[in-house]
């Protein structure tokens, strides 16, 4: 088991914004059971602002902590601002992740983008331009 930062353990112990949402405006669903991480992220959007965000995650400590952190980072932000939150920003906010766990942060970014993609499809009929979730496996 890798050793995690205090920040990671804090978000693992007390995940923020965990749960489901009634009638979300966008749902992101990424990952697969084969690699052992699945994230679902729900957003509520009002006047282009993410007013609420919730997540559910099946996965390791890092998967849960990155999910929790990204919800904190995007809550209250506009769609454009939220899209600028990268996996790197999530890792930094968590005071780092062990190298073998970096793919969890990529998954968290994808979960957010997937939710925004879903929201845009529902509200404008067009998804997030160029959005394509990463492969579930870490880059070679």
């Amino acid at each position, binding site marked *: 088991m890798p050793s995690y930062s205090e920040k990671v353990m804090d978000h693992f112990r007390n995940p923020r914004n965990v749960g*489901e949402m009634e009638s979300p405006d966008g749902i992101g669903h990424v990952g697969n059971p*084969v690699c052992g991480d699945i994230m679902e992220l729900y957003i509520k959007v009002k006047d282009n602002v993410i007013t609420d965000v919730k997540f559910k*995650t*099946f996965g*390791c400590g890092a998967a*849960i902590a990155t999910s929790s952190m990204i919800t904190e980072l995007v809550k209250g932000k506009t769609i454009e601002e939220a899209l600028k939150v990268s996996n790197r920003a999530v890792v930094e906010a968590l005071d780092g992740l062990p190298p073998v*766990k970096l793919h969890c942060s990529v998954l968290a970014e994808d979960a957010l983008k997937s939710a925004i993609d879903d929201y845009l499809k529902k509200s404008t009929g067009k998804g997030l331009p160029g959005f394509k979730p990463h492969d579930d496996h*870490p880059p070679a």
Partner: protein
Amino acid sequence: MKRIYLDYAATTPTHPDVAAAMQPYYSDIFGNPSSIHSFGREARAAVEDGREKVAKLIGAAPQEVVFTSGGTEADNFAVKGVAFANQSKGNHMIISAIEHHAVSAPCDFLKKLGFEVTVLPVDGSGLVDPADVKKAITPKTILISVMHANNEIGTIEPIEEIGRISKEAGVYFHTDAVQTFGAVPIDVNKMNVDLLSASAHKLYGPKGVGCLYIRKGTKMVPFMHGGGQEKNRRGSTENVPGIVGFGKAAELAIDEMSVRAQHLVPLRDKLINGLKMIDDAVLNGHPEKRLPNNVNFCFKYVEGESMLLNLDMEGIAASTGSACSSATLEPSHVLLAIGRPHEIAHGSVRFTLGRLTTEEDIDHVLDVFPGIVEKLRKMSPLYKRR
């Protein structure tokens, strides 16, 4: 917070009697066993005493025991040692799908050199079918390697039967007995074993020492070429304190084996029966043909590492077959081999008990663990969709 150690299959605390037996061999009796002077002779006597004790535990002759740095080296030695020495007979080896990587990885290495390896499947409880072993043997087969008991799921294999088949076919038979050595009775002759691996730190001995039993007459190349120690089979100055400790641990195991099992089995069964009460809990491994100290479950819809972290927060040390942290993200090959789908294999937890485990420890696990699973399931997107 009281810490509870339930990872005895990973390693055990050195028995105080073992540590005491080793102590003089660091600074007082420090000679090199190969030296002919009195200092060397004292060390030599200690090494040979250790060898006798280890041999006795498995019904072997002392000269058939070669000390190694541990179980991994013993497995490597067995596989590569037989492969390289018997190429005139053939290049085919048979192993099971649930072997420790210390056996399967050397086989992968040998495949690159032109050897052929048949990997036998196991059934849902992890058992190898001896009939499959028989069918897999060809005129080119030089080694069969099936572990005595699996380190993850605790299933004890039908070694005696596989040994008989190997003997009839005239093929060397190796068993990785790292988990059973000192825990269940072993008789290398009754079991028709030609090679057997063990590691001292799994039986309350020190780390850094193990052994390979090599039946007299077995054709092997040396593992280490060097000073001719261990009858030319493993060059390197003997780890005298380690060997003394291993010998003491073996001696204690002979004396206490049945007492230890009588202590462990009821605690193991209490833990199994308690964890079974959790919804969607699946026991891994054979219900009866099982190590006295092994409990392994998959809990559907949750991931192993997050369970371990929660247990660790409660002071409880366990292990998992989830490989969320491995580069491949592949879960345990053992759990996949017994037919667990990936997402369920990721949700495994192994508790392995030992001589210091108490009933209060087990009660505490049973108190806190259901809540951990429930908490994680509430977070799991897989759970709501069942």
